[in-house]
């Protein structure tokens, strides 16, 4: 079986039965950030802790990427195989809005305020033969 590895360390807890987005929270002002930051952008403190931001949220805004982006975009797709993808900010129970790819990619499927579920999905094949995994959100029933 192909080995699966996260596209970047520290973005989400995985593998896990219920993967969570990981971020940081400031010990002084309690503001959260994603990905985890060593410094707090709100109060300037240098004391932050890694925290789980949750795996469900609500859609705050969305758009659809209809054309294949130029580099630095790096997928396995070609202009011919490119599939439009959704992008949105999802409001997390951890107290921050996280930008993410969305599984839904038509306007009919997306609506501000709808509940969204975190998923860890294959993104592309790595040069060493492994599969790079990233996070995304998908619309779910209430």
């Amino acid at each position, binding site marked *: 079986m192909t080995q699966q590895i996260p*596209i970047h360390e520290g973005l989400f807890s995985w593998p896990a039965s219920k993967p969570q987005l990981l971020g940081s929270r400031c010990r002084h002002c309690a503001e959260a950030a994603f990905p985890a930051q060593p410094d707090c952008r709100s109060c300037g403190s240098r004391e932050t802790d890694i925290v789980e931001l949750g795996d469900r949220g609500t859609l705050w805004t969305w758009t659809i990427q209809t054309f294949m982006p130029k580099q630095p975009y790096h997928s396995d797709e070609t202009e011919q195989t490119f599939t439009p993808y959704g992008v949105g900010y999802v409001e997390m129970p951890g107290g921050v809005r996280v930008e993410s790819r969305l599984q839904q990619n038509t306007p009919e499927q997306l609506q501000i305020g709808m509940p969204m579920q975190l998923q860890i999905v294959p993104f592309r094949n790595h040069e060493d033969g492994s599969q790079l995994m990233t996070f995304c959100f998908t619309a779910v029933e209430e």
Partner: protein
Amino acid sequence: MDVAIIGIGLHRFGRSPELSGMQQGAAAVRAALADAGLTWKDMQFAYGGSQDAGNADALTNELGLTGLQFTNIWNGCATGGSSLHAACSAIKSGEYDIGVVVGFDKHPRGAFNPQPSEWGLDEWYGETGMMLTTQFFALKTQRYMHDHGITEDALIRVSEKAFLNGSLTPTAWRQQPLSYDEIANSAMVSDPLRKYMFCSPAEGGAALIVCSPEKARQLTSKPLFIKAAAVRTRHYGSFEVFAPSQAMDVADAPTVTASKAAFELAGIGPEDVDVMQLQDTDSGTEIIHMAENGFCEHGEQEKLLREGATGIHGRLPINTDGGCLANGEPVGASGLRQVYEICVQLRGEGGARQVPNQPRVGYTHVYGAPGLSGVNIITK
């Protein structure tokens, strides 16, 4: 103390395959000098910048090695605004009394492709397809429309006006008006924004000769005065481009703080402005910037646009030269193009696009990544 503008110059925006970006900058400086009736040797200092067309101080190879103080400025979309701000400070300090501000650019065709590392981000953010300014403007517009009851009709009307004004502006890139239906039926790029609602990277140059009020009295009978030049960056919580996360409490955008600072410096309010240039990277941002700069309430834009209030003959004439939508975006030059256009309007030299009733107060506004804004207020 005010700073005077006594010369303005522009090299046409769009595509000039025969000229480098630098040559377009030099052409703008020569035009501004000719407009002021001065020569390059009269300049004591220069501030200038470009994103993709080289170091501005290399312009001295074209214009003459006179030994003047020349400082390169690079500050994203606020490059022109920051150059002008620096020039105003140099004159107000008393160190110099006359100099030039110049911006120029020449970008490759197609969308910009910024790199994550230049913005303090890790590679995954770009690799997975979130490092696009078009997405950000679409995401911001989508939420704004939801919060303030703006419909697609307003987005279409902004573009319709931009291309109409462009068709009246000889130096604009886009010279053809587009119909409401052509815009409404153009391809969806990033929901809710369509093809004709986005500006494209382009080429061009713009320059201004600025001096002290005393010097202006000796040199010209038609000076204009910079009453305020303000540049501000984002606060924690403002919704900005290239942000993997945003705070829950949305703070005022840098446009709001730059605008307030400029009005305070000038001692006037939005109701006193007769003609304005607002950053229109896309039609959604022009709508948002109308309110962020204080020219209307959030949500009021829908009605204003339907009534044609932002047209050349309306009560809030916005982007009289067609703005970025019709001129394209040479990043280093755009901010100074706005100032050039305001000067044309205040002098009454706008021809087919002249705002009626002798406008006296003009306003310019830029906004860019990763959350900075520059505002100028200019009067007769």
